[in-house]
Each structure stands twice: as structure tokens, then as C-alpha cells.
């Protein structure tokens, strides 16, 4: 009993609980359909690559997970959200494919410049976008949502200009590999794992995480304590821009083309939702990166589940909304208090019975 209580009081308990709950829907559905109950979780190797719904969740959840890393830091340090990340993803696609294909070409099977230059320039562009956002927020004191609104609308348009209003295809195997498979593992999963590893190592072995949280909790006090608050906020936005670039890299290579209209469309909302589902306050301050990542994969789990259940596309946003509301409500303070009280009542009843 007491060990169960310990688990339920862990900070990550509720996000993980929600994710498992979403996946349980599939178990129930599979049993109702007469399939083996764990069909959803079965991972096999088919055609030489990993195969299964669980793999789909981790594969397709890559973009949201990478974005969630940057978004968590931005939310924590500046108590605001970066809504430009989806557009920056698309801008990465435009920049990278334009360079690789050569301006004006729409369909190439050879690189015009080496792959590394295309990716490098794309990521650099994304970092510059982050720098621009960060400068407006940290040094010009513009509200984050307003500051990032500029690139939210302009980023996609610049990508469009770079690609001459066309979808630019780069049909080169080494470019497709980034969105495909390395050996038997989907490359996006490896990229997400690398990003998560780097982020958690940096936060664990440097004081950056503490700096960010302290700036988020009280900007003025942190400055007086000797932190350069503005610089830390700027850094968070640059990291967020880089994350958007990396997510764009995965999304672009998946379809080996710069579909600037659709790459990263509405992804900023998924990233913000991931941070919230992870039990983080959007008011800044203390953050929990693992929570955000679980949140990101939970969102993908909902999407994959809806496809698996065969919910018609016209109705699925409604189902998604219902699930999200449930998860958010379960994690809210009043709900937590209610469960706590319920637990106490039970204990008291038990105590009374024993007496």
C-alpha cells in the first residue's frame, strides 16, 4: 500500500499513467475485435525493419518530441511559448531542399551541393530564427507570443519564396535515409534518442537547468543574484530554434521534399500541448523535461490509436479533444486534491474499522 502511494506521488506518475491509459484503449479494442489483446504492443521485424504500432508511435512522434525539448526550455525561462516552431520547420525544408536541388529546380536525383551543406544551412537558418525570437523577447521585452508570431507567419512564406512556390523533390537515397531506416531501426527514432540524450546530459551535468528555472521563477531576482537573465532567455530561444530545425530535418527527409505548405503545420500546438500534458506549468519556472517528452509521445499515441480504431478523419479531432481534456483535468490541482481527499477518507474509514 505504502509503496503504491510512493509511486502515485511521483511527479511523472500522472503523465505516464495518462499515456498507458491511451494505449489501453487499444487493448480493449483488440479484445473486442477478437484479436490477441497485446496486438498493439507487438513489435516484430518485417522486411528487415522494425514493425509495429509502438514503433509507429516512436517514429512519428519524433518531431513533436524534439520540439518539446526546446519548447520546455522556452516556457520555463520566459513564461511564454514559441509559436513559430512549425513555420521554422518548414523554413528548414525550404532552405535545405533549395540548396540541395539548386534554385528553381523542382525534381532532382543528384545533389547540387554536398548534403552536409544543405543540412548545415537549414539548421543555421533555424538557429538564426531562434536568435531573432530570443532577441525580441529577451532584449526588447516583447511578449513571447507576439514576438514569435512574426516568424509564425513569415517563416512559411520565406520557405515558399526559397522554393519558388513549388514542392522541391530531392530524390537521393542518402537524403531519404534521414527519414527512413538505419539498419533495422527507423532513423527518426535514433535522432530523437540522440537529441533527448544530449539535452538530458547537458541539464544533468551543467547548471544550465537551474539557471533557466531560476530566471523563469524570478527574472529580476536572478539578475541581482548575478545571472545574465536576458542571455539565458536568448539561449533558450536559440536552442528552441535548433530543435525546430532538427524536427524539420526529419519531417523533410521523410517525404524527401520541401512541401513548405504542410511541413510542421500546426506542430507548434502539439509542442505546447506536450509541455502541458507533461505536467509543466505554462507560467514558467520549474520544468520537467521527461514529462514533456512523455506528453509528446502521448499525443502521437492518441493519433495512432485513432487511426488504428478506424475513427473517421472528420470525427477524430473531437475524440482527440476529449482525451486531451481528460488528461489535463486528471492532472489539475482540484482533481489532485479530490483524489487525495478520497484516499484520506478511505484510510480514515479503515482506521475506524480497525478501532
Amino acid at each position: 500500500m505504502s509503496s503504491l502511494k510512493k509511486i502515485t506521488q511521483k511527479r511523472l506518475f500522472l503523465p505516464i499513467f495518462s499515456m498507458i491509459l491511451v494505449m489501453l484503449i487499444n487493448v480493449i479494442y483488440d479484445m473486442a475485435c477478437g484479436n490477441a489483446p497485446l496486438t498493439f504492443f507487438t513489435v516484430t521485424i518485417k522486411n528487415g525493419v522494425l514493425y509495429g504500432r509502438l514503433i509507429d508511435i516512436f517514429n512519428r512522434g519524433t518531431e513533436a518530441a524534439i520540439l518539446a525539448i526546446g519548447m520546455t526550455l522556452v516556457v520555463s525561462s520566459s513564461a511564454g511559448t514559441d509559436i513559430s516552431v512549425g513555420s521554422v520547420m518548414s523554413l528548414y525544408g525550404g532552405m535545405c531542399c533549395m540548396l540541395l536541388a539548386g534554385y528553381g529546380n523542382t525534381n532532382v536525383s543528384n545533389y547540387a551541393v554536398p548534403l552536409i551543406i544543405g543540412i548545415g544551412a537549414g539548421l543555421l537558418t533555424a538557429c538564426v530564427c531562434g536568435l531573432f525570437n530570443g532577441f525580441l523577447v529577451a532584449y526588447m521585452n516583447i511578449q513571447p507570443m507576439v514576438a514569435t508570431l512574426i516568424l509564425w507567419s513569415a517563416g512559411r512564406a520565406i520557405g515558399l519564396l526559397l522554393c519558388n512556390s513549388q514542392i522541391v523533390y530531392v530524390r537521393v537515397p542518402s537524403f531519404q535515409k534521414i527519414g527512413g531506416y538505419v539498419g533495422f531501426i527507423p532513423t527518426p527514432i535514433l535522432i530523437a534518442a540522440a537529441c533527448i540524450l544530449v539535452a538530458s546530459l547537458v541539464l544533468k551535468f551543467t547548471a544550465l537547468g537551474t539557471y533557466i528555472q531560476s530566471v523563469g521563477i524570478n527574472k529580476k531576482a536572478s539578475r541581482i543574484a548575478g545571472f545574465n537573465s536576458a542571455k539565458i532567455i536568448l539561449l533558450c530561444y536559440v536552442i528552441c530554434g535548433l530543435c525546430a530545425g532538427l524536427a524539420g530535418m526529419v519531417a523533410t527527409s521523410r517525404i524527401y521534399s520541401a512541401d513548405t505548405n504542410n511541413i510542421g503545420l500546426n506542430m507548434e500546438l502539439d509542442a505546447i500541448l506536450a509541455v502541458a500534458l507533461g505536467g509543466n506549468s505554462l507560467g514558467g519556472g520549474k520544468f520537467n523535461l521527461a514529462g514533456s517528452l512523455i506528453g509528446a509521445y502521448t499525443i502521437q499515441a492518441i493519433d495512432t490509436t485513432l487511426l488504428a480504431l478506424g475513427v473517421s478523419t472528420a470525427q477524430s479531432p473531437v475524440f482527440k479533444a476529449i482525451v486531451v481534456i481528460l488528461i489535463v483535468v486528471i492532472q489539475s490541482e482540484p482533481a489532485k486534491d479530490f483524489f487525495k481527499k478520497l484516499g484520506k477518507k478511505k484510510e480514515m474509514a479503515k482506521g475506524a474499522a480497525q478501532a
Partner: protein
Amino acid sequence: MNKKVLSVLSCTAIAASMVAGVSAEGDLITVGYAQVGHESDWRTANTQNYENVFSEENGYELSLIDCDNDNAKQLEAVRNFITQELDYIVIAPIQSAGWDTVLQEAQDAGIPVIIADREIEADASMYDAWVGTAPYDEGVTAGNWLAEQLNGAEAKILQIEGSVGASAAIGRTDGFAEVMAEHPEWEMLDSQSGDFTQDGGQAVMESFIKSYEGQFNVVVCQNDNEAYGAMDAMDAAGITYGVDGDVILISYDATHDGLQYTLDGKFNLDVECNPIQAETVKGVIEKMEAGEEFEATTLITDEAFCAPGIESEYATTMTEEILAGRAY
């Protein structure tokens, strides 16, 4: 101070009117085109076509607004055309509903409106002409071709639809369903939207493969980009498709890349949706300009193309020459 501001303002106004005067001097017919976006290769071919036909050499000044698949942005674009007092407005509606107010505004301003490419849910008196293709007929063509090829054999069909609410998606779904109703041996296993994008097509196909592994033998994608995504998903799962494969792959649009895949035998059938529509629109505008009578609705004919080695009365067999001779 106030005087200064006023003088600056009036200067700007004079300059603006001069600019407007200059552009009117050339006697170009101004046409505004509210384009859907550039979500697919088909759409970019359509945009290109308008830019070529409504050129200055042909006596037109085209304001083309790419509405990025955003309904609100498109309404705004049309309103701008009205305030700019353009001579003609051409709209390729993103959504079929919700146009009444804007169309009324155009009518009040006395600007003729031509609806292009997609259909619209408004009374025919609200706009002047319609030019486009019939997605319903395209769906019927795909269905008839499949019936001819299967010749009574069983079909387990998976369909990847276009964007929810787009008339092309609705028409193709309904047209195909019409033919399906005549064939009790056909079964639609599942039908989900891939949003007319490659990524969407791939995600939906990945899920379909897991749900209906080994059960399906026909995949219908409602545009070429979705079909590319479906191909990638089937490649990864080791499922063969096309002329030599286990699965019959049907696509719509017939863009250059799509027809290349048809020629390579990877698509069994690609039903055309002709993006070369600007000439027809120009014809209507010329008639309006001359005060002649014009067609209220003009249907642009679509063809269908099937892979080499397939003969069909509903589709043309694809050859190198056909691909080379295509305008897009």
C-alpha cells in the same frame, strides 16, 4: 505639425493615384485569382498555367494570391480584390461552404466572379460562371476501370481520401462509391483522410498495413502525393504493388511524376484531373468583355492513364510519347 502630416498624406495620395493611373493606361484587364495554395504538384501546375495565360503580352494583369490552404486568408484575398476594384475575380474555393457574404459583396461592387476548379455551395445566381473538372466523374472512371480489370473477382479496398470537406475528395469518394454499389464482391475495408499530402498518405498507409495485413488487394489514393506516401509505406513493409505486385494502386491527378510512376508500372491507374484550365477561363472572360453570351458552366474533360501492358476502354495506355507531350 498638423499641416506637415496633411501635406505628406496628400502627396502620398497623389503619388498613389498616379501609379494607379499608369497601370490603367496600359489598358490591361485586371484579373484576381485566389488560388488554394501549393499543397501538391497539381496545384503548382495550375498556378503556372494561370501565370502563363494571363500574361501582359496577352493583355492581362494577374494578381495571384496563394492562400496557403487557409479559408480565412482566401476570403480576405477576395475582399482585397473587391477593394482594388479589379475587373474580374477568379476563385478556386478551398472550402465549398461559407461564400455567400463575399460573393454578395462582389456582386454589389459589380465585379464578375468565376469559380474555378472546385465546386461551391452557393446559389448559381451568386456568381457568373463556373469552370472546372468533375471529381465525381473521375471517381466513376476509377471504379469502372477497376471493375473491368477485376472482371468479377473479389476486391478488398483501402482508400486514402483527400482533405475533409474538399469538393475533389467528396466527388471522388462518391463517384467511386457509386460504382462500388453495383459490385457486391467489393468491400471497402477502411477509408481515411491523408489530407492530400505525402506525409498524410504515408501515415495512413502505415496504419492500414497494420490493421489489414494481407487482407487488401486494392489501394485508392485520391491524389498523386498521397500515393507517393502510400508507396513508401508499402515498400517499408515489403508489400508489392503495381503491375507486377499484389496490390492494385490507383491514384488521381496525373501529374508528371504520377504519370512517370504509371509508365514504370508502379501505379496501375492514374485518373487525370486537368490543371490546364486558364485558357478556358480566359475564353469566358473574353466573351464577358465582348458582351457576348457565355457558358455558365464549362466542364474540362479528364482522361485516365493506365500502366503499360494494360488495355482498357476507360483509360489510355501510358507511353513515353504521352509523357513527353504533357504540358505539366
